[in-house]
């Protein structure tokens, strides 16, 4: 592997692999590749496996052979990673309505930034964003790559409620609020696709994939909102 990786365990059931504390795509790809290798070999012993920017976390089941697992990990992190273990990556299109009628609170962002709507939409849809991991709220994506022009300091006093489906910007990050939540980010758009519905989670995107926001009209917004299951648009991505 390209990076030096430390193994850190917290008791016999929580084992973590620590990469250097940097936010970088090549670290993410190493994590995803290694996660895949671990899952293939140890699935029967793993109760959960997930990661953040630079930590891969494995929780073992009761009675799993912890010592053998760690010894195996130690050997694996010394070796080069086979590229074939990186899963297929996708670029997903998420429809977002930036119409002020649908997103009235958007004006706060535009006023604070002294920006017009056209510029906001241009930058927010000009490139795709890398999905690093999910966290903070159920189904909340940590996306990287927001253009500098759109960065904005988080609100000093967070809003009591940001409505589910809101697409927002805070600091150097952008993301979708999958459920209602208090938050200090500025809402800039809304996606009509419900992420939690009828006991199902509508999030086919995996870490390593890219998210492309696409501007839609308020009419299209209503159509998608009233429609049944949303068919996500995707194309393969070879980063």
């Amino acid at each position: 592997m390209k990076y030096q990786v430390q193994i850190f365990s917290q008791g016999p059931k929580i084992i973590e692999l620590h990469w250097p504390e940097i936010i970088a795509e090549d670290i993410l790809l190493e994590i995803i590749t290694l996660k895949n290798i671990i899952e293939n070999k140890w699935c029967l012993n793993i109760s959960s496996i997930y990661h953040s920017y630079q930590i891969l976390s494995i929780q073992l089941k009761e009675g799993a052979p912890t010592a053998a697992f760690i010894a195996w990990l130690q050997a694996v992190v010394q070796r080069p990673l086979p590229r074939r273990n990186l899963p297929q990556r996708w670029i997903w299109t998420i429809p977002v309505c930036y119409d002020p009628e649908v997103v009235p609170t958007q004006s706060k962002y535009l006023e604070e930034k002294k920006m017009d709507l056209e510029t906001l939409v241009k930058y927010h849809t000009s490139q795709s964003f890398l999905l690093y991991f999910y966290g903070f709220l159920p189904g909340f994506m940590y996306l990287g790559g927001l253009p500098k022009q759109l960065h904005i300091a988080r609100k000093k006093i967070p809003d009591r409620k940001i409505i589910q489906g809101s697409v927002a910007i805070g600091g150097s990050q952008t993301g979708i609020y999958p459920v209602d939540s208090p938050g200090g980010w500025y809402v800039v758009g809304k996606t009509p696709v419900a992420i939690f519905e009828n006991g199902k989670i509508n999030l086919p995107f995996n870490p390593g994939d890219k998210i492309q926001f696409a501007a839609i009209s308020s009419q299209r917004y209503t159509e998608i909102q009233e429609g049944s299951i949303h068919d996500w648009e995707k194309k393969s991505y070879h980063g």
Partner: protein
Amino acid sequence: MGKLIFIKAGLFTTIQDSGRLDFVGKGIPLSGPMDEEAFHLANLLARKDPGAACLEIYMGNINLYFTENCQIVCTGANVKIEVDSKVYATNEIINVSAYSKLNLSSFSQGQWLYMAINGSFISEKVLGSQSFYPKITPLSKFSDNEILFYFSSPSLIPSDFAKIKPKVLPQMIFVPAYRGPSFASLSEEQQIALINTSFTLSTIQNRMGIHLIEKLKHELPELISSPVYPGTVQLTHAGKIIILMKDAQVTGGYHRILQLSVSGISRLSQLKPHSKFKFKLLEH
């Protein structure tokens, strides 16, 4: 199918099973019982799978009405259990007849109680689990007059004479914990303070986490988000200590100084606000 009617639902009564292990990668909290040991005991006594759905009851003061015969067992917090004015203890199988009322007064010790049924509680499984969680399951807690359906198993548990005594908490409580990733970054003095201080639980606590009153001053640098778990002891920039519990988010940006063991989480969960305890370092 029987109906369990919550005449008085209490402060925070939910259904909990073993939680949503398969969805942490999508940012879904694990959920599950605050006191896993008591939860397992309840299911064991009710002859159920260790992860079967139980009622989780916070602080007591609840009143239930059952429309069909069933057998239940309560574990965890200590409380007087009254069924139609007959009194039972925790950890004993209670035969509840149809049209009976069950009353739990306020808990004499502990905060969380588990009620298992010889049969099953019927509620929607969302993402593989019946555990309540706001926005994921239809209910986030039971309210007064709400109805829960249940199946009563036709094979009855024989009354046995061997009994498990209710738990008695010792005077000084030790909560076992492993070193977290940031433990080594603390100075020796701070490490000693963390282990020697008798900490106090604040009133800020729920199924997501518990805040402690005493602070631990430090100059550690800020971090980027990392995975967190039930039992993760977080140290905020201002030196506040927060212990994450079962409904906590799956990632967090604070320093992780300790990680409670499974029994450490169970023990801590049963301590009421203002209780004192010490961490006990575990080696592994």
